[in-house]
């Protein structure tokens, strides 16, 4: 059997003197033509492990291992000059987002040619030829034009392909891809995964770093799960994803929303009993109605673009309407129109049966209590100078709690309701974790006791286990308080888990609408079908309960 591409035994990496190693004793091998995936949440050490193979673990990293071999040759003692021979020629490295991983100030062609120039590949004209050849091989149309352009002038997908081209310029036997598709929309994600799969079939080894199990399940042959610097489990994809031996892997799998219908619990968290005063009897009259909404924007270059074109929908009490679509599909603008933070050019919005978008801001202000909002980046929505306690207190309406002490007491109660401990209350949000911050945002949203909460990508910035906890919290609150949600996400799995009815949007238009079962079970519109196809849901049968 030929020597493995990579052999790593008992690799440890530590930063700075004395503190915990980031990677504590990892061993694995990668054979040519094989895709070895390393999965784990942020901070698990997966990225550092892969980068050690390139000698790029990071400034001040102390790396040691019993064996660290590329093609049977040890790289432990490598000095910078030795590493420079390996990088680009032996190993290609693809990062997450080509917009910042390609130098924005240099043309795409020059970036790709750089690898060739560094390793003295032929003459200038030969290099230009090779660049065009590479761009075609990764599927970029009109290579001559694209090579002369700057990265920001290409589309997301084309940029990522160009980035891959720059990594495989010298046909390195091993390619390391660190979150190669995380920055892309679902449909383009699938194309890139196919491109990587094709390279694997051509015989080059591939190390895939990802936090997204669905991406891993499509591409990897063998997978390793890392947690806090330790490799907890390793083995063929089929076994690990269907019959995980380590409990942590199981929690990871359970936390994937895509695999579980609405109503199933994603995390083991339980919610403390809710304040009885909040519970509201369910009723089936309509809460929010939007008819034929149109919104146009004038871009910086003076060209007018239509962000939302003829969108209509309605949300009943206690119901969750999911809006799914890729970036630029107009879902956020729709949310802004629902919140009446933007005036529609055409069409109207009614809240609780009465005029909402046409009302004057002064008339709307007292009724704003009925509708709250949660953002994707909670930190940005808090005043940096305020503590958690003050943020929520500020949201408790004076009409409901005229007395200051009652307001303070109410805010504290709300923060406990969303699962935050006493010690967090007097701290600034900057020092809290992503999940904790989202809980504060939810508490603030609950403060005015709204009947509808608009959630704009509330969980897409969170790790999957934390995402699971937040989604469960939202589900519990809906059930107890009879809240309605307008839930916006690009992540089909999340929408599938939370939504009663779904709106699929593309470039400002509604391509399809229907109940979750209809959309996910029998999608009519080709675009919806294409979105669903890229969802790995259909692949290996998840453990607990198949699709509805």
């Amino acid at each position, binding site marked *: 059997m030929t020597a493995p591409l990579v052999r790593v035994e008992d690799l440890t990496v530590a930063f700075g003197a004395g503190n915990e190693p980031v990677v504590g004793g990892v061993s694995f091998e990668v054979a040519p033509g094989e895709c070895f995936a390393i999965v784990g949440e942020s901070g698990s050490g997966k990225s550092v492990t892969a980068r050690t193979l390139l000698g790029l673990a990071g400034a001040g990293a102390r790396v040691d291992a019993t064996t660290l071999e590329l093609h049977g040759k040890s790289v432990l003692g490598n000095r910078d000059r030795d590493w420079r021979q390996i990088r680009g020629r032996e190993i290609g490295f693809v990062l997450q987002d080509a917009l910042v991983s390609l130098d924005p100030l240099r043309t795409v062609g020059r970036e790709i040619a750089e690898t060739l120039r560094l390793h003295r590949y032929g003459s200038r004209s030969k290099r230009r030829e090779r660049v065009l050849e590479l761009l075609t091989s990764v599927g970029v149309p009109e290579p001559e034009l694209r090579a002369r352009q700057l990265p920001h002038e290409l589309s997301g997908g084309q940029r990522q392909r160009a980035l891959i081209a720059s990594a495989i310029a010298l046909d390195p036997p091993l390619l390391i891809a660190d979150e190669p598709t*995380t920055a892309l929309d679902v449909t383009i994600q699938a194309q890139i995964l196919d491109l990587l799969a094709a390279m694997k079939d051509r015989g080059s080894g591939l190390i895939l770093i990802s*936090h997204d199990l669905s991406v891993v399940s499509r591409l990897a042959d063998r997978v390793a799960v890392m947690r806090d610097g330790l490799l907890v489990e390793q083995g063929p994809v089929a076994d690990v994803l269907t019959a995980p031996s380590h409990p942590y892997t199981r929690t990871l799998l359970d936390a994937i929303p895509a695999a579980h219908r609405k109503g199933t619990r994603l995390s083991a968290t339980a919610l403390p009993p809710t304040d009885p005063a909040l519970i509201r009897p369910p009723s089936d009259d309509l809460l929010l109605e939007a008819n034929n909404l149109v919104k146009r924007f004038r871009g910086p270059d003076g060209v007018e673009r239509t962000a939302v074109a003829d969108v209509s929908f309605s949300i009943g009490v206690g119901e969750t309407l999911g809006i799914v679509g890729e970036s630029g599909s107009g879902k956020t603008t729709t949310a802004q129109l629902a919140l009446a933070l933007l005036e529609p050019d055409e069409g109207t919005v009614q809240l609780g049966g009465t005029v909402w978008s046409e009302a004057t801001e002064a008339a709307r202000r007292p009724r704003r209590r009925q509708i709250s909002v949660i953002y994707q980046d909670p930190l940005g929505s808090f005043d940096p100078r305020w503590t958690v306690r003050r943020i929520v207190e500020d949201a408790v309406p004076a009409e409901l709690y005229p007395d200051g002490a009652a307001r303070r007491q109410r805010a504290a109660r709300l923060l406990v309701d969303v699962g935050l401990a006493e010690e967090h209350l007097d701290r600034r949000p900057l020092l809290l*974790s992503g999940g904790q911050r989202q809980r504060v945002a939810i508490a603030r949203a609950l403060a005015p006791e709204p009947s509808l909460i608009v959630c704009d990508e509330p969980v897409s910035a969170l790790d999957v286990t934390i995402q699971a906890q937040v989604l469960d919290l939202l589900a519990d609150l809906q059930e107890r308080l009879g809240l309605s949600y307008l839930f916006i996400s*690009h992540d089909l799995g999340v929408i599938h888990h939370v939504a009663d009815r779904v709106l699929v949007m593309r470039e400002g238009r509604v391509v399809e609408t229907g109940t979750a079962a209809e959309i996910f079970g029998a999608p009519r519109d080709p675009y919806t079908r294409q979105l669903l196809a890229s969802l790995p849901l259909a692949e290996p049968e998840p453990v607990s309960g198949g699709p509805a």
Partner: protein
Amino acid sequence: MTVNVAEGLVTRTALAAPKAKSGIAFRPAVWLSAVFLLLVVAWAVVPDAFTSESPFDTDVDAAIQAPSLQYWFGTDASGRDIYTRVVFGARSSLLIGVGATALALVAAILFGFAAGLGGRLTDGAVSRFLEVVLALPGLLLALIFIAMLGPGVATEILAVAIGSAAGYAWMVRGQVIAVRNSGYVHAATALGHTRSRIIVRHVFPNAMRPLVVLATMGVGQSIVWASSLSFLGLGVAPPAPEWGAMLDAGRDFVSTAWWLELFPGLAIVGCTLAVTVLGRHLQQRIEGRLA
């Protein structure tokens, strides 16, 4: 989407043990600057505590003495003790530095907020006006005011303030617009808060934050500006002990009595340096804590 890996990293570190950011390593430079500034402020407030002599006492027989135990910084052409004059000079230099910056900041806030919060029309008008004032060289405006109102401390403060106000106003406008479009202002609007409440509770305090750093650095630049005007003979008239005027008086002794030029120069550079170092340090602390 690009955020989540970075976000993840932050959550991991925060999750581990969320504690206040470790104190910025207290570099010696910051200590030195703080001590020096305190000294200068003390000079300005209680000069008599630092020297028994008066800045106006001349001693014709002791003219142009080199620095010695008796005269730490030596004596000037009229035999006056330069150390005493530097001490007494602190007051007028600081007065002009702080006065001019304060005046410039007030103007900056007025114009900045008017442009930032006003409608498109007011913003357009104020911005164009600021662009025009910025196009005129700062020193020119100062010179014109001095020609109009005659030299003196009050004119110098006004002249220096005018020179820097437009720049500050431009920054304030940018900051106000950034805060107005921030997430927390949108959230507050969604909560149904009135516009005035949002301005008072969110826009004003957050727009003011970088001004603190601007102000500290501004004092340094104003002191340099004021002394330049005195150097051109347009500032405070002798025998008043003002650092710029002392440098102007010492110009002819530059190759024979170096101490005449050295010590007032060091005082100015010291002040400007100290203020800039503290300014940048403040910036890091504020940026670090409230990023």
